[in-house]
Structure formats: C-alpha cells, structure tokens
C-alpha cells in the first residue's frame, strides 16, 4: 500500500463566471520515500490538488470531493477538520512558492518555528528554541542561533525558503508537498534549494511531491513525473521514461518547447498553438483536443482515461497516458 492514495479527487470553485472544475477526477499514488513531480501550466490544477489533499482549499468558494484520500492507512476525507489539522505540519507538510509572502512578516523566525514544535511536539521555551536552531542548521543556514531572532524581511530570498523548509521539516513529516519552491528564486539559488530538498528527502526518508511548471526542475530531482492539463492527469511515468519517450501529445509538445543549449539559435523554439481551455466550459471531449496535432473524431466526443500504455519499462507502476492516439515510443 502506498503512503498516499488519492482516488477521484475533484475540486470545483464557484465564481461569478460559473463553476470552475480546477481538478477533474484525478487519482494517483505516492510511495513512501519516493519523489514525485507534478508538472503542468498555471491553472492546470497541480497546486490546487495538493492543497486539496491537505484540506487547505478555502470553502467557499472551493469544494473538494474525492472517493478517498488514504494517507498512511487513514482516509483523510473522513477525518474531522481538527484531526486533519493535527496531521498538517506534522506528518503532512507543505511549502509554498513565494518565501517573501509565505512567512509572517511580523513574527520572528524563532516565533514561527517554535509554534510548530509547540503544536505538534509539545515543545516550548528553550527546548523548542534549541530544536528550531538545529532545524535551521539542518537546512544549511549558517549561525542558526543568530538567525532565530531575525524577521523575514531581514533575510534573503533563498534564506527565507530555507526557513520555510526548516519549518516544514521540524515535525519530521512523512510527506512533503513543495509547491513551486524555486520559482521565485534566482537561478543559482534554485539549484541549491533543489539539492537541499533531495538531500533532506534522502536523510529523513520522507516522500516529496514537487509541484512545478518547470520540466528542468523535475528532471534532476524526482523519480516519477505526473503531467496535468486542464485539471486532469494526462501522463504518468518514471522521470527517465517520460523525458525519453513521452506518449501524450501534450507532454511531447511541452518537451519540445524547452530551449536547449545545443539547439540551433536561428530556429524558432516551437510552442503549443492556442490557449489552455476555459475551465468553466469544458466539453465532454479531451481538453487538449483543440490544440492537439494528432486529434481524431473520438477526441472531441469523449475524454480518454489514464491507461497503461507500456508496462515494460522499469518500475512497477509503468507508464500511463490519457490519449486515444498516444505517440509511439519511437516517435520522439
């Protein structure tokens, strides 16, 4: 049994323009200790689905439904709000995109860190302070003792993200969701933070779900990758397999639009024609159909399900894609 098993997760937002189906019936597993990349454009539902697992989607306007969300044996959909709250920041942790705005500007680093310890480990005072300092050291912050009394605005962006990570790891979670943890940072700092996350994951033996729009980020960091488009999972595979032989036309197009250092500078970078669909007026067909080069009649009539396209490659969960006309393994 996997650490996290999500079945048929749906998130809808009621807005003035209509009901937005932000996440439209996705199912996925996260094994203990593994590292999973969740990739998609903004608005594809990748952040919302992780917020939904943690019960952090604001209601109203959001409404989360799921057949089941089993974490470590218990069904999160059946937990009381308070029981779910006790799991959050404890066994299930999350860090966010923008460390500038995600830390409380009016509380010191120490106040924000020790709060977690007080809530989940019953630690207070000097003891909590000592653990907090150790946590800061753990994420590679030099002189952690002296940083404890700093306010977030006195730290650099990379340092703030390290504080966020330290805060999430204080209670030794089994699963960490990292929502675009490097997007707001300088490129050099991005690499450091990714290395740190990989290192921490291995040392703490926790699972990591890395949410990003940047294929480059998942390439070096994760074991498996799930690609989302318009609220649906369109492809799931081991990272190597996905990069080598993408089966869904969307994934393939995405990979082609990533610039490389060895490309011909005079050839324009290919991009995907058209715009992502309006999530309030999704029809019955495949959401990618209007932009797809391999589209057939059937794609406009019914939505393809995520199905195994090849079980031959390593890893017991194989390679799945939601497409009636998947690319052949040799096509890319």
């Amino acid at each position, binding site marked *: 049994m996997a650490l996290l098993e999500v079945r048929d997760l749906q998130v809808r937002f009621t807005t003035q323009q209509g009901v937005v189906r932000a996440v439209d019936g996705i199912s996925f597993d996260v094994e203990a200790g593994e590292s999973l990349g969740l990739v998609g*454009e903004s608005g594809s539902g990748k952040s919302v689905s992780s917020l939904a697992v943690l019960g952090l989607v604001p209601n109203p306007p959001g409404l989360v439904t799921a057949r089941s969300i089993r974490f470590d044996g218990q069904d999160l959909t059946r937990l009381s709000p308070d029981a779910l709250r006790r799991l959050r920041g404890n066994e299930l942790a999350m860090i966010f995109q923008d460390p500038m705005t995600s830390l409380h500007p009016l509380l010191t680093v120490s106040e924000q860190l020790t709060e977690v310890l007080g809530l989940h480990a019953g630690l207070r005072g000097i003891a909590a302070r000592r653990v907090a300092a150790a946590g800061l050291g753990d994420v590679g912050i030099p002189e952690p003792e002296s940083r404890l009394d700093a306010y977030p605005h006195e730290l650099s962006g990379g340092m703030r993200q390290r504080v966020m990570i330290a805060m999430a790891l204080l209670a030794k979670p089994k699963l960490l969701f990292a929502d675009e943890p490097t997007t707001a940072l300088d490129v050099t700092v991005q690499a450091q933070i990714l290395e740190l996350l990989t290192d921490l994951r291995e040392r703490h033996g926790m699972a990591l779900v890395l949410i990003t*729009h940047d294929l480059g980020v998942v390439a070096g960091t994760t074991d498996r990758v799930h690609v989302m488009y318009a609220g649906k999972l369109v492809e799931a595979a081991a990272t190597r397999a996905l990069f080598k032989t993408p089966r869904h036309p969307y994934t393939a197009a*995405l990979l082609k*639009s990533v*610039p490389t250092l060895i*490309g011909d500078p*005079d050839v324009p*970078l290919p*991009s*995907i024609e058209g715009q992502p669909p309006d999530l309030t007026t999704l029809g019955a067909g495949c959401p990618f159909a209007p932009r797809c080069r391999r589209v057939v009649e059937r794609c406009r009539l019914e939505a393809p399900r995520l199905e195994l396209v090849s079980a031959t490659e390593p890893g017991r969960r194989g390679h799945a894609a939601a497409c009636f006309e998947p690319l052949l393994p040799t096509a890319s």
Partner: protein
Amino acid sequence: MSELHKTAETRGSDLRWQLSDADLEELFRQSKRIKGESLGRDAWRRVRRNRPAFAALVFLALVAFGSLLAPLWPLPSPMVLDLQDEPQPPEWVLARGGWDAKDIWDLNPLDSALLQVRASVFGDLQTGHWLGTDSKGRDLLSRIVWGSRISIQVALAATLCSLIVGVTYGAFSGLVGGRIDNLMMRFVDVLYSIPFIFVVIFLITILNEYRAVLVDDYGIEHITVFYFVIGLIYWLTMARVVRGQVLSLKESEFLAAARVLGASTPRILFRHIVPNVLSIVIVYLTLTVPAVMLFEAFLSFLGLGVEPPKVSWGLLAVDGIEAINPIKTFWWLVFAPALAMGSTLLALNVVGDGLRDALDPKLRGK
C-alpha cells in the same frame, strides 16, 4: 501565453528568438481586434450594477431637485413666526395661506420667478404642517427644504474650494518633485498635526469681529468667508492624494511605454495623467461633500456657522435637541431633521464608496 512558454522564452533569451514578418503582421491584426473599455464607461456600468449606490444616486438627485426648486413647492414660509405655547405635531392637511418675497431672506431672480410660478399654479393653497412646527410656530417641512439649500450650498462651495486648492497644490508638488515637493509636503504634514477645527473656530471668531467691515467695505457676506474657511480645512488630504497619484504616474511603466511609442506630451498629459488623477479626485470629492456638510452642521450647531433667520440642517438639529425635555417629547423636531440629514449623508457616503469601488482599476471587469 502560458507560464510554461514564458519561462521557456526567458530562458532562451540568449538564443535569439525572432518573429517572421508574417507572424508580426498577424499579431498586429489580432491586437487591433482587441477592444478596450474606457474607465469611465466601465465605472458607470459597475455603479449601475451596484444597486445601493445607484439608489443613493437617484435619491440625491431628488434631494437636489427638491432643494433647488424650493420656492416652487406649496410650503409655508420657513421664516414667518407664529408664536404659540408649544410646537404643533404633524398634521396631514392642506391649508390656505401663501406668502411672498418679504417673508423670506434674500432671493435671487430665479427664486423670485419660481415664487411667482408657485403663486399662479397653487394660488394661496399650501400644505398644512406636514412635519409639525417648531417652538416658534414655523413649519418644519418648509424649514428642512429651505435649510437644505444652505447646507448644500455650503457643501458645494467649500468642496470646490478644497478642490481648487488641493489639486493645484498637490499637482504642482508632484509635478515639480524634488526638494520643493519635499518642502511642500512637509508643510502639509505640519498642518495635518494641528487640530484644525480649533484653529478654524478661533479664526471664525476673529473673523466675526470684522463682519461689518467685510460686508460694508468689500461686499463679502459672512457666509462666504465661512465657505472658504471650511474649504481650507479639507484641501490637505486632497493635496496628498493628488500628489501621490501624480508622482506614481510620473514613474509608472505605462507612461514610459507611451513615451516609447512616441506619444506627445499633451497626449500623455490629457490621455494618461488627467484621467488617472481625475478618477481619484472624483472619489475623494464624493467623500469630501458629506464631510463638509457634517462640519457645517457641527459649526452651526455650536452657533458659529449659519445664523438665524437663515436656517441650515445643523441649526434644525439644535432646535431638535433643545426640544428634548422630560415633560413632553416633541419627537418630530428630533427625527425629521435627523432623518433628512442622515439620509442625505448616508446616500453621499454610499455613492462615494460605490464610486471608489467602481473606479478602482484593480476591480475592473469584476
């Protein structure tokens, strides 16, 4: 463009990425089809959709109409005394009476004409005391209608005064910038930290000493000075707001963009700066008018503003409070002026808030 592609693009920026001429032309053709909506029209649409604000606007229009045409309505004189033992309660009847220009304070030619129209339309027919009478036997409804003229006059004149001083000061400070701007704003700060009302009351007291001189030698009515003095308090915030807006516009990227596109200076001024400053000025104005009306009522209440026989809503409120006594409550004297003033001020505030929401570009399209 999706976020993915944007990233791809920025990362590939050193890879020289070009559009073909055909692509470029297609892009231009597409951009021409995109129609902008002017801020004004967008705001009007949203004010209309904001039902309370729209209702308040209609109400204010009715008040203004009723107040402007006061001599036309078949009301008893607001000035002629009819000394009785005590105020008479409201009575929904019609009466005979009528009165002419000598029963009212100074009238302008339009008012005199209206008064004549009234005489020819209604004859000597007039309302009974629909809202009762005050302690001197004067009709309360009539006093409220005529009082509204002075309250509205003061409000408009004082607001205009604050508008002229505030916008000039703020725009000048913002446009000049630098050391002068700094000094001018410091001066505003100093004035801000003075409890102005005390200074103004002090000023009004001293001005009262010069009333005869002002009227005889310069032909300036006491009340005119009064408008001016009130207006002078409220220019400070206006100056700050305008200066801030001008300053941020000066630095804004869209102005830089307009300049890069070759827009002329007058075009930049009138297409970009004026409309942007205007919206914030309008919002602030709609919030200044009720504040000024409140202040007029406040000063008249203290006996430092409008003086009898003229009447304003502030004076009517004093009458109401003086009529409160434990033996017999003349409730209409308390409620009627309070209701008139309260509903008008409420409507002004609602319209102001509605306009602020409507003109806030951050909310556009919502």
